[in-house]
């Protein structure tokens, strides 16, 4: 009749840091007594002086709060999971408390003091847009979904091609021919059904970019062409959004974070190369695993932005060379002469990016599809 009791992080100092305690069942009161018998002092946390469960403590049996059942008399038996979840300081409404399922799913994050249950709820409230559901967009979307980022937006209008599968983790063999967004939604929900995936199945262009990007707090660039990269940069800056940038080609990767006022993509590369000078991944090739390296770095930076922890990759351009496995860092500065974020900006609204970048390649409408 063993039941498993989930101990929330702040209470673990009473349980020798154990996350789960196995005790015999019976009813909830008996279970709490059994935990207290093993770890004296535990009952001070879950009962008030009248030996009632105080309002700020929720106890769940499997996924149901015991108030909806028989309170502490609720019967529990073999294999049942009990979770003790304290509401957090600050008067959080009950609806925002983590459910036991969430507390367990994200426990390896929550256990870290830099995250905690407050951080986990920040992740759940976060809205992140990923431009391109391809090479970079795949690992970013998957790691954000796994971490419980509440809303993940995806922009892509492409269809899964067999040649995508060498690197694009969101899509599998059976998805060839489906839209990347349909495939992505299925994959992300299989990983984590709690995540809301919002799809934007259209090319990003000057007429829709502000509206789409405006709905999100953090933007991740996984586009596969310069026109979309400048468009996303300009739109994110004009809307005051943080842009987590990454790009790849051959065995090389680049990553940085643009915060409005601290430099932008135009400060880094004032103009796009002439069409044809810098090949695409389709033309030149790309190592599949470099998408995982750069995408994971982007996902990590998103995570840090949401939680406001660590030192962001702002003002630094990280260069990754997979062949030598060297990571180098260059300084990235706001350019006072930048036409977008400089002292006298000339770009004050979105422009025609195909014209700015020269004609797109003839073969395909690549704007914002991730990784052809």
């Amino acid at each position, binding site marked *: 009749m063993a039941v498993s009791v989930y101990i929330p992080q702040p209470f673990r100092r009473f349980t020798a840091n154990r996350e789960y305690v196995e005790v015999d069942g019976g009813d909830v009161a008996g279970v709490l007594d059994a935990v207290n018998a093993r770890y004296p002092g535990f009952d001070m946390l879950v009962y008030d002086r009248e030996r009632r469960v105080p309002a700020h403590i929720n106890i769940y049996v499997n996924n149901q709060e015991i108030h909806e059942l028989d309170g502490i008399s609720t019967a529990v038996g073999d294999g049942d999971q009990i979770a003790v979840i304290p509401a957090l300081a600050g008067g959080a409404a009950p609806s925002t408390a983590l459910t036991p399922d969430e507390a367990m799913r994200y426990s390896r994050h929550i256990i870290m003091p830099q995250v905690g249950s407050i951080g986990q709820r920040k992740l759940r409230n976060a809205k992140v847009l990923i431009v391109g559901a391809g090479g970079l967009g795949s690992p970013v979307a998957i790691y954000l979904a796994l971490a419980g980022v509440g809303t993940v937006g995806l922009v892509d209008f492409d269809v899964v091609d067999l040649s995508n599968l060498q690197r694009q983790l969101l899509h599998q063999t059976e998805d060839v021919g489906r839209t990347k967004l349909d495939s992505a939604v299925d994959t992300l929900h299989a990983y984590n059904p709690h995540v809301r995936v919002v799809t934007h199945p259209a090319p990003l262009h000057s007429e829709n970019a502000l509206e789409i990007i405006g709905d999100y707090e953090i933007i991740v660039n996984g586009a596969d062409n310069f026109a979309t990269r400048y468009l996303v940069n300009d739109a994110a800056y004009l809307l005051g959004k943080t842009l987590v940038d990454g790009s790849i080609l051959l065995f090389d990767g*680049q990553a940085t974070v643009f915060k409005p006022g601290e430099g932008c993509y135009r400060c880094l590369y004032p103009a796009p*190369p002439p069409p044809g000078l810098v090949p695409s991944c389709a033309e030149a090739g790309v190592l599949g695993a470099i998408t995982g390296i750069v995408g994971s770095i982007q996902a990590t930076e998103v995570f840090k932005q949401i939680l406001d922890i660590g030192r962001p990759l702002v003002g630094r351009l990280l*260069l990754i060379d997979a062949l030598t496995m060297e990571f180098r860092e260059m300084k990235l500065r706001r350019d006072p002469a930048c036409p977008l974020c400089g002292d006298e900006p000339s770009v004050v609204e979105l422009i025609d990016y195909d014209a700015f970048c020269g004609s797109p390649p003839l073969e395909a409408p690549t704007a914002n599809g991730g990784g052809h």
Partner: protein
Amino acid sequence: MEVRVNVTSVIQKTVGGQRELTAEGGTVAELIDDIDRRYPGFRDQLVDEGGQLHRFVNVYLNDEDVRFMEGAATALSEGDEISILPALAGG
């Protein structure tokens, strides 16, 4: 002045596929000329007809973008490291 030069991504094919080489020069422009003597066509990848650095390729002296220094006229010192970095669009 001998300086180590790191060449990234698609620029590598203009220097015979090398990722790293050494070159001579008192300034960035002279260094580019030195490499161009050995690998004709290299200069065109980095500078325009007026000798200005292209706006889509970055040249870093150590970890600083020379655009924020003296551009192609930026002076080099013994032991400096130059990195040449094109924008990448792959995603």
